[in-house]
């Protein structure tokens, strides 16, 4: 059962790679308009959760619903057309295509040429740095710039929700702040966000709710505020040196 204001809900998802089980009865809810963060150490199954939502990996059992309708059995392109966009782990830009082409690829599911052109302009106001780089090969950008392109690309489909896998990974502190700021901006424009992070303290700054994943099981969940003060989270993730 999912709450009426749930945009995305995973319930009792069990996932396997061959014999190895990666998720154990995973249940996660993303409320409409919220930023929800999934925290966890390496190999805890975070990226796999993203892949389940996007239909890149099929769960063995359990249900995934978006806006009340099941996503199980849909292909990735079909799921994207329902209104979910993604910023994949390590950006995954189309390295040999130009920045402009990368951003426009985000609008692949749309056919309204004029509105797409307007949205491209909007992206350039949101990410002003990309303006001079439009005809450059995406593969030649710095990591931070690539992250901007990946976010612009995701926004171009006018999604109702964006899923992001470790959007701050490998970025300098300056860019990390910038990215978090942008996520908040995007969210304020009405897009729900589900993000996977290892950096709990940063993620909890902007999230409404958070879940903590440990070897495929949700061990903690609640409002970001409560989790920030939870000693268990603090010990495991915010404790400075020995993170995860």
């Amino acid at each position, binding site marked *: 059962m999912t709450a009426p204001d749930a945009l995305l809900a995973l319930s009792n998802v069990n996932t396997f790679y061959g014999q190895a089980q990666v998720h154990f009865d995973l249940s996660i809810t993303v409320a409409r308009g919220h930023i929800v963060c999934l925290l966890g150490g390496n190999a805890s199954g975070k990226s796999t959760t993203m892949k389940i939502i*996007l239909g*890149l990996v099929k769960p063995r059992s359990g249900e995934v619903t978006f806006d009340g309708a099941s996503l199980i059995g849909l292909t990735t*392109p079909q799921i994207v057309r329902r209104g979910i*966009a993604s910023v994949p782990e390590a950006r*995954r830009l*189309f390295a040999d295509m130009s920045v402009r082409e990368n951003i426009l*690829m985000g609008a*692949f599911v749309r056919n309204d040429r004029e509105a797409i052109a307007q949205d491209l302009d909007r992206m350039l106001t949101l990410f002003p740095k990309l303006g001079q780089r439009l005809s450059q090969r995406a593969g030649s950008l710095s990591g931070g710039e690539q992250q901007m392109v990946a976010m612009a690309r995701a926004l171009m489909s006018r999604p109702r929700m964006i899923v992001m896998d470790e959007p701050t990974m490998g970025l300098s502190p300056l860019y990390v702040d910038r990215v978090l700021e942008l996520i908040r901006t995007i969210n304020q424009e009405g897009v729900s966000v589900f993000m996977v992070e290892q950096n709990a303290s940063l993620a909890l700054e902007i999230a409404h709710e958070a879940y903590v994943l440990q070897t495929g099981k949700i061990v903690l969940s609640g409002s970001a505020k409560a989790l920030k003060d939870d000693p268990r989270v603090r010990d495991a993730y915010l404790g400075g040196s020995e993170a995860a």
Partner: protein
Amino acid sequence: MSSWLDYTINGLIVGNVYALVAVGLALIFGVSRLINFAQGSIYLVGAYIGWVAVVQLHTPLPLTIIVVAVAAALVGLIIERFGLRPLQNSVRIAPLLATIGISFVLDQLVMLTFSPNPRALPSQLPDVRFQVGGGTIGPLDLLIAGVGLTSALLLFVFLRYSKLGWAVRAASQDRDAAMQMGVDVNRVNQAVFGIAAALGGVSGLLVGMYYNQIDTAMSLQATLKGVVAEVVGGAGNVPGAVIGSLLLGLVESYGVAVFGTSYRNLFAFLLLVVVLVLRPNGLFASARQAPPEPLTGTFIAPSRPVRIPRWALLAATAVFAVLPFFPVSFYVLQTLINAWLLGMLALSLTLVAGTIGQVSLGHAALLAIGAYTSALLSLTLNVPVGLAIIGGGLMSAALGTALISPSFRLRGHYVSIATLAIGEIVSLVILNWESVTRGPIGISGIPPLSLFGYELISPNSIYGFSFVVMVVLALLQGRLLSSHLGRSFRAIRDDDIAARAYGLSLNRYKSLAFIFGGFAAGVSGGIAAHLYSYINHETFNTQQSILALTVVILGGLGNVVGAIVGAVALVGLPEVFRIAAEYRILIYGIVLLLLVRFRPQGLLGTI
């Protein structure tokens, strides 16, 4: 032809034709990371459809080209939809094997429909030549150049300005990311297969017109040339494929100018091996490019091998051992002798492809090396046949391993291409090294099998000899696999990175596998030479390499008993059902396709 300009023009024109094949291969490789071995078959189909159009329907040239392009595209779409799409979630090697099966089926269908005899394909163009500088150029040269340029332009416009073209480019750079943008990868696959097939078909038509001759042997040649050009240009790189093709055309044309026609293909394959070894990502790949193969194994369908009780194996061995003492016909013995010889080859291949994961498509070369060595030892040095055969095995082990060793650092599909090329090189060296191999004439009057001075001429004794040799090789291989060495082999196959991390020296283990496998195959070739009494450079060909691969997949990759069961089944069943010889290759192709689709682990399971 006389002047260098003529050779240059010829090289560029032939290169243009290769480019039409190679660009299709590059598009497909880009999107699916698949080397489409059926590309040459589509080229063949294109040539024959063109023949029907020109000779029987008398279509005008522009219409001929359109008919061929559309019909070939349809064939491509059918291959994609029914041959490859069902394999999407299958093991990595499955689509490659499927395209090999499809190419067998298509080639055989063409052969059965049109007979293997060459046909003339008139060019429909006036036969004049214009003087250009020191050379000449004809209307057909201009047509080929024109078709090449037009196709390149159309392709450029498609990839750069159409939505589907964007999808193709995105999918070839990052398939998963493209799907996350909403790209339907099935439609992309359809598009590239359709385009590749149309270009390939037109290429076949143009080649047929250029040489005014078409025959069914064109298919494999075209696939090989296309693959060479594509890999030289950098797998998956479309402009690279064009440049690689022109380069290949020029290298071949100049090579022919200097050394003669029979060297044409040798240059192509040497170029391939050199590029694979020195720059496996092709001449124009940027260093940053990710390796185009997944890093870990999963070449083998995981399965639980069928356990055969020891007594059943002993009983079966005993039955086959005493068979000649019963009144069985010569025909049955003959069939089983063929099965035992193929069984030895399959033992070799199942070790190399199954146990250590190097899917070789050139295994017939090992037969050829063993056969020539044994034949020449016994003929020219009067070495006793028994020893000569062992010499053949040793030579195959040594030379085969030495030839293949430069490609040990390659992975996956590249291993298959390299072994295919090495197989062709061996056959071409045999053809051209006349002072030793007697070149195209072949070796005749090879002495019959004999052991300690006794000639083995009766079918019973030949049967007994080959059976015993095969059983001994099988027992040795069984011992090998259950030893520590066997476990290391499988570790390398399943995850070469992890195996290396554990300190296994990959090259040493791959060498050991090829030495053992080379010996078994060389012995098989040696025995065959003395049985046939005549061999030439075509006795052991790619068809046999593929047959051996089908046998080991049928038996279960890596499975020793399976290799022998597979050999008996594939040699025996067509006899039991009295299938006419010309349908056999077709049947083998279909068996391969069905296996890959429905039972990739084979009859007895992979080990």
